[in-house]
């Protein structure tokens, strides 16, 4: 999974071929250690080495694509990809014209490599067993190099390779009472991990106070940056895509129609330059540094995939087909994080949310649960942990008329998802103080 291997495949496959206008190759690979823990002991330790190449051929308005597992052996993989390319070329006459097919006009090559210092499985397990001894730690470590590449027969080459890790864990006290922590980056430092575990050991003792059951109703709440990132991740699911706006199913459709707006202090940007996702997508479009999505509370641009650009007559801005952000960033406000509880005064501190979904997509109304270390707060002090509560509220209201303040420095929250492969998305978010948050059950 080095650049040289990708170049070798690209040079072999992405050559001009008779009867075909363009050949492209999208490459995705990783060599990952996945180690999961329960009760501070190893539950499953797995190493996964995987590489995929998606070869695509285009003739006129016809395109066919195939994603193929690669073996890592250059000769075998070139042979496999060329065979797949030949199959696709043979199939093209059976494929109808795609009126909305759009490919990049410019040739834009990019490269980003981030080397890292990662623990071996033995070092990682030793660290957990040593520093979390005697705790009920349940967690998951994912680490190793991840690569993405794009090449086409015009000579464009895009490369993204990062050596990184992401470790998320909970220290459980009892039942569903736990403190969640995370440590992610490129350079593993055992002392930093140990300090985070030690801090969690202290925090989990706060859960020893008798739990307070809150009746449903409206509450003044403080959302941690992680909780805000959860809300924004849900908003990313159907909130910003151009097609969704055009067909009226965008969850921000009320804002697009001028019927609702966020608070003037809300700025949301697809901040590719400061995120951790690749700068290119699978068709070879290169993303701009930033796409403003909400400015001063008003919806701004949308995420436009090549297909939407052709279909709706606008300019593509590097979005993938699903038109969801990969580096969404919310600007901070003026509230110092150390003053957040004092500003909350009396209400609920929400560290984590769980299982969010829309209950009314047209109204941008979301439902979900509080999770882990959430507390009832009085006079700016944590008083008691709360039982898990269900909420149902409009994000436009929460971050509109309900918004009281945002903390100063947003935190980057990398996406820990590993469906099919390790994901490279992130959300950057500040903490948020909100009035009238609606608990329902």
């Amino acid at each position, binding site marked *: 999974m080095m650049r040289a291997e990708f170049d070798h495949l690209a040079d072999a496959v992405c050559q001009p071929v008779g009867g075909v206008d363009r050949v492209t190759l999208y490459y995705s690979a990783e060599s*990952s250690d*996945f180690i*999961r823990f*329960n009760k501070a002991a*190893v*539950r499953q*330790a*797995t*190493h*996964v*080495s995987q*590489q995929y190449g998606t070869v695509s051929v285009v003739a006129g308005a016809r395109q*066919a*694509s*195939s*994603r*193929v*597992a*690669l073996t*890592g*052996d250059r000769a075998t993989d070139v042979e496999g990809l060329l065979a797949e390319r030949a199959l696709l070329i043979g199939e093209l006459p*059976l*494929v*109808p*014209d*795609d*009126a*909305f097919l759009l490919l990049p006009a410019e040739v834009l090559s990019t490269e980003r490599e981030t080397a890292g210092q990662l623990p071996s*499985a033995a070092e990682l*397990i030793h660290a957990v067993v040593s520093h979390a001894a005697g705790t*009920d730690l*349940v967690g*998951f470590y994912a680490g190793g190099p991840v690569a993405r590449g794009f090449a086409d027969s015009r000579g464009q080459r895009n490369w993204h390779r990062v050596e990184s890790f992401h470790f*998320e864990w*909970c220290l459980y006290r009892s*039942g*569903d009472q*736990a403190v*969640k922590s995370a440590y992610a980056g490129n350079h593993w430092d055992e002392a930093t991990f140990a300090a985070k575990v030690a801090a969690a050991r202290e925090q989990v003792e706060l859960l020893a106070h008798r739990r307070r059951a809150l009746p449903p109703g409206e509450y003044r709440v403080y959302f941690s940056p992680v909780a805000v990132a959860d809300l924004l991740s849900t908003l990313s699911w159907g909130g910003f895509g151009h097609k969704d706006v055009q*067909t*009226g*199913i965008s969850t921000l459709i009320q804002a697009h*129609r001028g019927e609702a707006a966020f608070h003037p202090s809300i700025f949301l940007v697809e901040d590719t330059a400061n995120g951790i996702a690749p700068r290119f997508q699978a068709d070879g479009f290169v993303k701009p540094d930033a796409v403003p999505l909400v400015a001063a509370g008003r919806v701004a641009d949308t995420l436009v995939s090549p297909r939407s650009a052709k279909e709706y007559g606008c300019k593509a801005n590097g979005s993938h087909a699903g038109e969801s952000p990969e580096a969404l960033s919310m600007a901070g406000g003026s509230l110092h994080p150390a003053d957040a509880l004092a500003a909350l005064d009396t209400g609920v501190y929400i560290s984590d949310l*769980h*299982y969010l*979904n829309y*209950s*009314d997509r*047209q*109204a941008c*109304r979301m*439902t979900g*649960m509080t999770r882990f270390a959430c507390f009832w707060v009085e006079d700016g002090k944590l008083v008691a942990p709360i039982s*898990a509560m*269900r909420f*149902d509220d409009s994000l436009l209201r929460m971050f509109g008329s309900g918004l009281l303040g945002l903390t100063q420095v947003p935190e980057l929250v990398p996406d820990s*998802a*590993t469906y099919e492969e390790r994901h490279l998305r992130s959300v950057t978010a500040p903490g948020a103080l909100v009035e009238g948050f609606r608990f*329902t*059950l």
Partner: protein
Amino acid sequence: MHSFEELVRKAAPAADYWSARWVSETSEQLVVRRDVAQAPQRQRDAGVMLSVVHDGALGYSATSDLSESGLRRAFSNAMELARVSAGRSVFDYREADLPRASGGYRSPNDKPAAELSLAQKFDLLHEVCDSANLGDAIVDRAASLWTTHTEQLYLTPDGGRIEQAWDFVVPGITAVASAGGDTQVRSAAGQYNGFCQQGGLEVLERAGFAQDGSRVAREALELVHAPNCPQGEMDVILMPDQMMLQIHESIGHPLELDRILGDERNFAGTSFVTLDMFGHYRYGSDLLNVSYAPDMPAQFASFSFDDEGAAASREWIIRHGILQRPLGGTVSQARARHLRPGIEGVATTRACSWNRPPIDRMGNLNVEPGDSTLQDMISSIDHGVLMRTNSSWSIDDSRNKFQFGCEYGRMIRGGKLAEVVKRPNYRGISSAFWRSLAMVGDAGTFEVMGTPYCGKGEPNQVIRVGHAAPACKFTNASVFGGAR
């Protein structure tokens, strides 16, 4: 040239146990949206997951390099992970006595999808998409077809050899209607493919795929002109394409043994169910009978062996409302017996593909039919709502406090179906809700559904599960609608 099996057996290390699970999968996804065909998406995937039990610890290694050197390297990785986990594992995996079985499975497939050419499949999708064009108020419409063929070979010491092959068919139809400032989405059986089965083109016939486009679009138009579902406590009838979600979230997940054992607490969550409940806990009313049914013909998660190599058989999970056994395979059962001697489970430990280790999953989890006709159920309700087709789902960490939404509702007034309502939602607590089960539909209301998208596990896995159910009536549910 050596066969893959020969290479594996040659490369396998001297260990307490090892396994090799080779998976090969080919798939094709076709979409026609607004009468425009999108580029066909093909996939050819193949690789192997190796496991080694050494010194009581378990290590896994997955690779797509199926050469002898690749297999040796992967076995070495698995052995190394077992070695560094030894003495630091949650369990001595030797105690699980992992199976070394032989056997096979093959999906029913009366009319293989390959009998249709690519052009014919696109023609079908064009027809279905076109049939959903009921005028300008239909602002978007799409028809899709996703076919997959999967082969799996599971090898264990002493000649253990399990060969299974599946064919999956997932049709989809979606229509979006917009009028009067509102937009409504209606789908054939859920926007996330609630109608999905094993088989060939006969699955499309069972789905009524070729004729269903206009119904979907018509109902989208009905919804966009309909009032919101009212709020209040009332009886509800859930049709099978919502029952599948209700079963999945509030019976399936809480009964997964790895959740009960705490493995998922960092991600998917824990469970309100504890090991001491099995055998006597009243999960639902007397009418609730839930089966684990890996032998259900054509259901999405039918198989003969799970991915730990254990033979799968039909078992009662809930019988006359009483909890019987959890959804957990060989390793989880062995771990649980340390805490609750004698507890049993079902063979349902599965992986989504070659690159993920197996964990406890649902398989086919079904509510068995009762003896009420749909008309009986409707007639029994003075004020209530019938809900179809899941559109929203959320439930807490312990699988207690849920809130679900559907695409399509019909009010029931005075024992008769009345007006269509949009955005029907309901919320409740799992056990209280299942105890309010008042009528269970007969075989005439029973439908075989499922989902291709059950997410769980670290590393994350999306897996296929099946849920068949009749229509069911629940009393005094907390129902509500949309904002406007």
